[in-house]
């Protein structure tokens, strides 16, 4: 326990926050970098995965693709992907930028499956009667998607983004191994110097960052939930969801934690 107390003392020491300190300090710069990588990667992944997920969810075409793809991606070792991209990118991009470019590509690749699964599962789980009601009142397919399906499935869509953000925060730590900045550098420099305070302090920082971001997403999910939202109807779609296997789990991680409280 002493180690943890020391780590907390290290975290609270103002000396570690002085601007212009030697890397990996000051701490706030590393937090900023970590958030920056996360936001950039998740946004690029969302631009790719959301339209695709909406299309698949709306038309039902390519369901098998999503199920297979998200399942296969789960087996892909993140460390291997990072290192392979670093070597490939390093062959063409100047060394100073190779770490950043390779890491962002890897983070985007890892963020896509959850967002895709969330978007697809969200749209798919909207009550078919509601969708037909939209059509009957003269909406075009695009209007049905934008005015009916997306608003009703927002909690699940955001759940997918939430899961991808968690994945990216965790993988960005590992990317410090190819000298990407961020909070991982505090841990890796701690391992290098055999400095317990840095190892633990860095680990606690990343964990707290992940928990805070996760909590913010949970809050946003709750705020976007409305009557008829696809995840409040979960009990009904339950059994059908199940047969889908991997996607279900992606969708369940999506609204982890609060849904069970609500459905009681």
């Amino acid at each position: 326990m002493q180690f943890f107390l020391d780590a907390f003392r290290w975290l609270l020491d103002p000396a570690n926050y002085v601007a212009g300190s030697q890397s990996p300090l000051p701490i706030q710069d590393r937090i900023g970098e970590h958030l920056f990588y996360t936001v950039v990667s998740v946004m690029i992944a969302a631009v790719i995965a959301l339209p695709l997920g909406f299309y698949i969810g709306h038309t039902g075409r390519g369901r098998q693709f999503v199920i297979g793809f998200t399942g296969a991606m789960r087996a892909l070792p993140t460390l291997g992907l990072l290192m392979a991209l670093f070597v490939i990118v390093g062959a063409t991009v100047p060394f100073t930028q190779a770490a950043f470019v390779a890491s962002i590509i890897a983070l985007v690749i890892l963020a896509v499956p959850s967002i895709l699964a969330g978007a697809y599962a969200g749209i798919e789980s909207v009550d078919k009667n509601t969708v037909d009601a939209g059509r009957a009142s003269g909406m075009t397919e695009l209007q049905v998607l934008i005015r009916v399906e997306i608003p009703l499935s927002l909690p699940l869509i955001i759940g997918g983004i939430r899961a991808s953000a968690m994945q990216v925060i965790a993988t960005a730590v590992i990317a410090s191994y190819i000298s990407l900045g961020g909070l991982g550098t505090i841990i890796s420099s701690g391992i290098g110097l055999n400095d317990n305070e840095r190892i633990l302090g860095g680990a606690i920082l990343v964990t707290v960052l992940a928990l805070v971001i996760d909590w913010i997403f949970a809050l946003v999910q709750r705020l976007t939930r409305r009557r008829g939202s696809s995840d409040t109807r979960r009990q009904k779609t339950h059994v059908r969801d199940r047969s889908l296997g991997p996607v279900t789990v992606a969708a369940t991680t999506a609204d982890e934690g609060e849904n069970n409280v609500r459905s009681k």
Partner: protein
Amino acid sequence: MSWFIENFDLIAGLTGNHVALSIVPIVLGFVIAVPLGWIANRWLALRSIVIAGGSLLYTIPSLPLFVMLPYLLGTRITDDRNIVVALTIYAVAMMVRIAADALAAVPAEAIEAATAMGYSPWTRFWQVEFPLAGPVLLAGLRVVSASTIALVSVGAIIGSANLGYLYTNGKQRDFLEEIVIGIMASLIIALVFDVVLVLLSRVLMPWSRQSSRAKHRSILPVERVA
């Protein structure tokens, strides 16, 4: 290809260790999560604690957990036990919710019928609830298996000798072939584990294939029309 042949012993050794490091968390995760899932259904107050706890643990990023555990367990940082414990925590965190949902979805009539026939709660669990929850438990186990095998390699950063070593070593030597072979080996392990799980379930749950097809037929139209 020549690198693969020349270093076959190294790759085989790392693969063996990778498999060993994956099996323990997968099995332990299942064994711990199923009773927790049962408890979560038995006492509703515990349900939110168990499931929220699971998702909280799952949120902890992998490398930080790997490096925090030595301080909690009193192990050395390079000790493989840290990786096994960390991956078991993730496996339980992932599996507990699936287990709770799977057991909750067992039809109440089946449980009542078993009780009426004089089953004790213990035999009823093993002969009725557990087998009926089997297909969903299997789906969860397959997910846990795939992600555990992928996560083991992160341990290479803190010195564990598994396939992740091929990634870090390949990066240092700027040698893509080594990394790609390592990734493929990891994917093959995941695939083999998946096939084994599915085959095992066919043997243990011979009824599940038929019933899942019947389920599809009966539920989909009802969903659409109702």
